[in-house]
């Protein structure tokens, strides 16, 4: 993707430059989208769709439903782009927050209709993520994140993954992990804080 502004900062060689420059670029594209710039939105889509769709698939699992969720999220993103404020967070986290919320809403309402038959299982079904998360395999950033995840305690990591990737409430997570009620939310928060600090983001 071409840089949006001519004065984007020179990036150091190595892994971090992609993330840094593209964050600024994405913020600019999002801002342009808020003014109704469809071409900018198309570029924003191209830069973020794999993350958005991948997250939706991870949470809702069924690829066709994930596609619907991602579509809803992007249309919402277009409609509300002018509300984005880059001083409050990155464009990617704004987009993924939207995708995640819609994904979780989808699984919760689907689960509500089949709750009686549901057994909690963590085995893979539907999409095999290990073989399909192709881009992630190559990404330095993803490897760093995985290492950071590995630095969490076992319970922190499990609680965080059940909540974020599987859409369970902290109360459900507590039950699934045999934690006292009310402690899963603390594990989730501790895990996120550690991940944030290890990765040096959001400072």
């Amino acid at each position, binding site marked *: 993707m071409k840089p949006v502004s001519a004065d984007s900062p020179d990036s150091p060689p190595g892994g971090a430059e992609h993330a840094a420059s593209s964050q600024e670029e994405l913020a600019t594209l999002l801002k342009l989208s808020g003014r109704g710039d469809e071409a900018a939105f198309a570029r924003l889509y191209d830069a973020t769709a794999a993350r958005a769709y991948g997250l939706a698939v*991870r949470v809702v699992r069924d690829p066709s439903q994930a596609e619907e969720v991602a*579509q809803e999220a992007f249309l919402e993103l277009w409609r509300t782009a002018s509300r984005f404020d880059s001083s*409050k967070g990155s464009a990617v986290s704004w987009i993924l*927050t939207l995708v995640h919320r819609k994904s979780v809403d989808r699984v919760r309402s689907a689960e509500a*209709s089949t709750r009686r038959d549901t057994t909690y299982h963590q085995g893979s079904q539907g999409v095999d993520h290990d073989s399909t998360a192709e881009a992630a395999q190559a990404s330095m950033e993803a490897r760093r*994140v995985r290492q950071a995840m590995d630095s969490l305690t076992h319970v922190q990591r499990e609680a965080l993954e059940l909540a974020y990737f599987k859409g369970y409430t902290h109360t459900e997570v507590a039950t699934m992990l045999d934690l006292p009620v009310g402690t899963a*939310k603390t594990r989730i928060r501790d895990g996120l804080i550690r991940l944030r600090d290890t990765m040096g983001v959001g400072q």
Partner: protein
Amino acid sequence: MNESLHALSGAYVVDALDDAERAVFEQHLPTCLDCQREVASLREATALMADDATLTPPPALRDSVLAGIKSIRPLAPETGPATARAEPAAAEPAADETAPDGAKVLQLRPRRRRVATLVAAAAAVVAVGVGTVYQPWQDDSTTTQLSAADQVLAASDAQRQSIEFDDGSSATVVRSLKEKGAVLLTRDMAAPPDGKAFEIWLQDDTGTMVPAGMMKRAGDHKVLLEGDERVVTKATGVGITVEPESGSEEPTTEPIALFELGKARA
């Protein structure tokens, strides 16, 4: 800083709060700079987790998104005083079903078609003023003020009673004596039969059922119960019955749900 609310920040960021908790936290958030900062920074961390899930979407998604935006007008930017309401997560659940300004969500599959009728039904609910309907990105000037329903949900003395139904839907009554109000929250409620609506009742301290509001559509509701303060604060229960759409003065059918409220203070 409210410690117990602050502890919800992580679960909030990964959407692991239930509806009532989320409502409470979102009321708290605009008032607490510490929580805003923490939520923002933790969001960056969760965005990193998503890096690990990257997956190339089908090309059709791009086409339908780019076709879809042609019929959607982007919202105007906010021009009022800066507040914390430019929060992506200020969107409420079921937001896509109540898109307020005609924003169309293209239906990829027939199975989702019910959404279209819900949009119309939701508009009707707003028109009769029965209760607060969820809206994405609340963008009107009232956003910075707590609605009466949200004040009840956020009240420190709020008492809750939940019922789960066999079909997986659920309903919760929240009452605050301090706020002198009660709110009914529903999740995934089935549609009432044709020509009928759900009527909500407060059972007063003499055992009489007093009309307290109507729900005319399926789905998620947040309804501030009607009734004078005395009835609301002294009510011993809340019931829901199926009634004609115009409502009834007293229940004409057996309740589909009954909530017992804790002892009200005199």
